[in-house]
C-alpha cells in the first residue's frame, strides 16, 4: 500500500465567512476563546471597487502542512515533525517555546498554546484519523468549502477535485509546497 498523503482542496468561492470552521476547531481541539489562540482563520480579502461595482472574497486557511517545512527545519529540538501521511505535528514535550517556528512559518499558522506550554497549530485533527473521521472544520462547513483526503489516492474526492480543476497555492514563491490547494 502506497503511503497516504493528506491534503485539503478548498473552493474559497463558496465561503460564506460564517466562521463555523473556526468555532468547530476550537471545541474539537480545546482552544479557549482568546484573540491569538486559533488554528484556523477566514481572511476577508480587500474589498475591490467602489459602490456600486464592488466584489468581496474570503480566504479560509490554516497550517498548509508544507512538504518543505520551514517550521521544522528551524526547530532546535525537533519538536515539530511529520506523520507518515505528511501531517506536520508538534511534540509538546519537546517544545521549548523558542518561537523560531513562528518566525519561520510564512503563513502565520502557529500560536502559543499557554495551556500546554507549547507552540501549537492545525493538526488536520489527527486525533480523528483512527476512526477515519474528517477534520472538524471540513465536516461542519455549510457549503463544503474544504475537501480533505489522500492526495496519493487518485480515487479520493480530493484528488479528483485537484485533477479536475485549476488550483493555486498560497505564497508559492516561498517554495514550501503546501498541502492546501485552492480551486481557481
Amino acid at each position: 500500500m502506497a503511503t497516504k498523503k493528506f491534503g485539503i482542496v478548498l473552493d474559497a468561492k463558496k465561503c460564506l465567512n460564517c466562521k463555523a470552521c473556526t468555532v468547530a476547531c476550537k471545541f474539537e481541539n480545546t482552544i479557549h476563546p482568546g484573540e491569538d489562540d486559533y488554528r484556523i482563520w477566514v481572511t476577508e480579502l480587500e474589498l475591490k471597487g467602489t459602490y456600486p461595482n464592488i466584489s468581496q472574497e474570503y480566504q479560509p486557511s490554516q497550517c498548509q502542512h508544507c512538504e518543505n517545512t520551514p517550521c521544522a527545519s528551524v526547530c532546535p529540538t525537533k519538536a515539530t515533525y511529520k506523520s507518515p501521511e505528511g501531517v506536520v505535528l508538534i511534540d509538546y514535550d519537546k517544545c521549548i517555546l523558542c518561537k523560531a517556528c513562528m518566525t519561520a512559518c510564512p503563513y502565520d499558522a502557529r500560536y502559543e498554546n499557554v495551556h500546554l506550554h507549547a507552540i501549537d497549530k492545525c493538526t488536520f485533527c489527527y486525533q480523528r484519523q483512527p476512526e477515519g473521521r474528517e477534520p472538524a472544520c471540513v465536516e461542519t462547513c455549510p457549503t463544503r468549502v474544504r475537501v480533505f483526503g489522500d492526495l496519493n489516492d487518485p480515487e479520493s474526492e480530493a484528488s479528483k477535485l485537484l485533477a479536475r480543476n485549476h488550483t493555486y497555492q498560497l505564497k508559492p514563491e516561498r517554495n514550501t509546497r503546501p498541502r492546501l490547494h485552492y480551486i481557481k
Partner: protein
Amino acid sequence: MKLSRRKFLAASGGAFAAAVAAANLTSLKAVAESGHGDAQTGEKGEKHIASSCEMCVNKCGFYAHVVNGRIKKLNPNPRFFKSRAMLCARGNAGAEEPYNPERLKTPLVRDGERGSNKWRKISYEEAFQIVAQKLAEAKTKYENRSSVAFFSSEGLQEGSFQMLAQTYGSLNTVRHPSLCLSSTIQGWSSVYGVYPDADLANAMFVVMPGANRAEALVTPDSMDFLRYRPKGQQLVVLDPRFTNTAAKADKWYPVKPATDMAFMLAMINVIINEELYNKDFVANMTEGFDELKAHVQQYTPEWAEKECEIPADEIKWCAREFAKYAPRSVIYPGRRTSWYVDDVAFRRACAIIPALCGCWDVPGGIVPKSGVPLKNPDIMYPFYDMVEERLDVESFGEFDNNLPDDARKEAGLPTDSVAYLGEKDGSWIRFREAVLRGEPYPVKMMMVYKQNFVEAAPNRAKTLKMMEMMDFICMIDIQMSDTAFYADLVIPESTYLERWDVVHSLAGIWPIATFRQACIEPVYQTKSMFEITGGIVDEMLKIPELWDDTDEEELEYFKEDFVEAILHAPIQDYIKYQVSGFENGYEKLLKDGVIYKTDQGVYGQSAKPGYRFKTRSGKIELTNVKYPDKGLDALPVYRRARQPKDGQFRFILGRHGWNTHTGTQNNEFLWEIQKENTLWINSKEALKLGIKNGDRVVVKSSVGEQTVKAEVTEKIRPDCVFYAHGFGRVSKGMSLVYQKGASQAAILEDYIEPISGNAAMHETFVTVSKA
C-alpha cells in the same frame, strides 16, 4: 491507561502512527479532554448522543460528543439531510451554553426596583407558587383571564408554554411572527394558499429580494445556493446593502428601499406583454389573469427604473431570463420580512411571477412544504367564563395604526385594524399599543417564554413603558435577557443540551422530524419548560379561585386526561406517542436523532387530481378573490413611499451568520468573532459628514438615539445606514455585550404592516453625526 493529550502527541514519527493504530478508540478520544469551564460531573467515559440544535430556528441535528459527563463538542449528524449535515458557528458554539458563566442557574425573584439587578435566589417550588398565586390574583382582580398575556418565542418547548397559557385560559398569546415573517406568509398565501419554499438546489434562475441567505442561515437554502448550485444557475440579489449574499450573486442591484415592488410589477408587465408566460398553466391553474394583465400595463420597466433605480434593460433581462428557465426559476419568498407597511402587497407581486411561468411544485421552482406525519394528543382545556377576546382584536376601531405619511396611507391598508391577524400569534405592535392605552380592557400581567421583546420589538421606550404598567412579569429563559432583566421573577430553563423536547416536523421540500434528548444532566438542576408548566399547573390546582368559572365535570376530565396523563407522565411517553406511527420510531429517534419517510425532495403534491388550493377560488389567485371583502386591493398596487430628506438616512436591519437575533451574543465563542456592532455608512456620505472609519457617531431617530462606531464602506447605498442586531444591550446579566455597540430597538419607530399585523422595521429615518 488514560493518555494525556500531551503524552498522546508526544509519541513521535513512525512510532506515533503505530501508537495510533494500536490504541483503543476510547483512550484516543479521551486525549481531547473537554476544557472550557470547570463544572464537575460524576460521570466517566465517552458517548455520542443524537439531538438537535436550538441556537436558531433550524434545529439542525448533531451528535453531542460527551466526555465524562461534559459536552466536549457537537458534531453534525450525517443523517440530517435538511441541513446537508452541517453545523454553523452558532451550532458549534452551543456546546458552551450549559457552561456559560452567566447562564441562569436558579429561580430569581426581584429584590429591589425593576431593572436594579437585585435578585434573591429561590427554589423552583417557591417560584411555581408565586406564579400560581399571581395568576389567581389577576383572575380575581380583573375577572378576565385575558388580562394576563403570554409571550413566547419559537422552539420545541414553546408548546409546553402554550399548554400553560391554555390551562390558564388567556386568549392573549403573542408569538414572534409579527416581528418577523407574518407578511411574507400572508403575501404568498394570498396567491397559493400556503407559504412555500424555493428549491435552490435545482433552480436555474433565482431572484432574491433582500433575503440574505449567506448570513441569515436557513436550511437547506443557505447550503444549497452554493454547495449544490446547478451549473449555470444565475443568482440576482436586490438589496440596498452589499451582503455576503450579494457578494455571491451574479448580479447585485442596490435597489432603492421601499421600491422593490416596482421591480416585480415591471417584471410581470414584461412577462405578460411579451407573452413569456406559461399559457396552459395560467389557464388551468390560476384565477384573475385578465385583471392582472390590465392592471400591470401602467407598470412599464421604464416607469419602474425611475422608482427603484434599476435600469429598465436589467428588469427586462430578468423577466426574460426568468421565463426562459421556467419552471426552474424562483423569486425567493424570504423570512424576516418586517420591512415596509405595504410588505404584503410586495410579497404578492413576488408570488405572482412564478405562478405566471408555471414554476410551481416542480424541481427548481416554488414548492409547497411537506411535513412528516406525527401524532399529537388532542388536549381539551376547560372553558372559562371570565375570558375576553384577544386584546389586539378587541382594539380594532379604537385607535389608528401607526403608518408613515405618504401615498401608502391613503388606500389599500386598514387604518385602525389588522386584516388577517394570526389568531394564536397576534400582532405585536397593535398589542403593545392596546396595552399602553389600557383599552378596551387592561392587561396587567405577563408570562414570557424566551421572547426578548425589549430588544426584539421596535421602540424600546414604549416596551419599557408597557412593562412598567404590569402588576407582575415572569420570565422563563436560559439567560438574563433584557426582558428578564426587567422582570419580577425569572425562572431558568435547562439549556437544550440538558433536556428532552417533543418531536417536531420540519416542513419543507425535504421534510424531516427531530426532537431532543438530554445529552448531559442539567449542570444546575434546572428544569425544562414542560416540567415548569407541570409545576405551575400543580400549584394552580391547589387554588380554588382559579377554577370557579368553569364546569366541574370538564375540570375533572382535564385533570385526568391532561394533568395526570400528560403533565405527570414522563415527556418520553409523549414523544413515544408522537412517533407511534413509525416502526421502532422511538428507538430510531434515540439512535439517529431524526425520523422521516424519505430523504428525497417531495414534489408534485398539488398536481394530484382534484387538488384544491387553499384559496377562496381553489386556484392560484393572481387576483385575490377575498381581499376586496376587507377593502384591500385584489392586485398589488404600487404607492410611492416617502424617502429620507437631505441629511437623513433610512435605517435598515440585518445580521451576520454568527449570531441569532438577541440570543447568542453573550456566548464567548461567538462574542470573540464580533464584540460590538458598527454603523455601516457609505464612504461618500461619510466624507460629507466628516466621519472617518472608527469615529464614534450618534444615530438619532424620532424615538431614540444610540452611539456607535462608524464603519465607512462601499457596501451600502448612500441613502441608507445599517448596524447588526443584538448589541447595545441593557441587561447587566449579559456582560459581554452590555452597552457594547448600538441597539436597534432603541431607535426603530413602531410602524405596522396592517394586513398581516407584522412590524414595519425599515421605515425609520435617522440622522448621523459625530459624537
